[in-house]
């Protein structure tokens, strides 16, 4: 299959009109029409955009003897792995809680009287909260690193 046929097939497969595809790629409808009728070839940046848009490899688009779609370069790693995302959320949540608690203890000392009672070694509500924050940061970091290690 030639590039023009592949473009047509991919577009039809996804039930898109030429206008919709043109909008998605930020090109004119005429350009899509020309590509599909082999009147012109897409430029390299447009080819990249096409491969990303349809989720196929450049090889698949360009090589005429290649019928399998292959896979596009892996999706951004931030989007990969639910565990990684969960870890990221937990880790950032823990860090933000630490920052929030620090600011609260300075700006609203009544809400955090840990030092006022000179009882730093006793684990009271504040201590438990800090431990929870640290645990969240560590667990989140471990989840992220495990997820990245797998990739």
């Amino acid at each position, binding site marked *: 299959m030639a590039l023009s046929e592949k473009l047509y097939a991919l577009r039809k497969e996804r039930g898109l009109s030429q206008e919709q595809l043109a909008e998605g790629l930020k090109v004119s409808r005429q350009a899509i029409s020309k590509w599909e009728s082999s009147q012109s070839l897409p430029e390299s940046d447009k080819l990249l955009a096409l491969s990303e848009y349809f989720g196929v490899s450049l090889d698949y688009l360009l090589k005429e003897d290649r019928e399998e779609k292959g896979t596009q370069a892996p999706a951004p790693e931030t989007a990969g792995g639910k565990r990684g995302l969960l870890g990221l959320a937990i880790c*950032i949540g823990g860090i933000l809680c630490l920052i929030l608690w620090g600011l609260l203890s300075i700006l609203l000392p009544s809400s955090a009287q840990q*030092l*006022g009672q*000179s009882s730093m070694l006793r684990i009271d509500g504040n201590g438990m909260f800090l431990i929870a924050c*640290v645990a969240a940061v560590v667990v989140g*970091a471990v989840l992220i*690193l495990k997820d*990245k290690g797998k990739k």
Partner: protein
Amino acid sequence: MKKLSYLFGALAVLLSQVMCAVVAYGYCDMLWGIRYACYSAPASVAFLLAIPYAVGIAACVILAAVFYRKAKR
């Protein structure tokens, strides 16, 4: 990846700033308490507050380095 590494770098810096503020505030509070409110613990106890922040900063630095390396590949 690079954005994440910058994000964790920024969080590490922010955490270090908050840590300094919290420890300084706690230390001053302890000094005041020892002088006027009969606190029994030494003022240096305030440094214990740095522990959770130190853990957070270490985690942020490690994650920033990991993400930066991944982005470079």
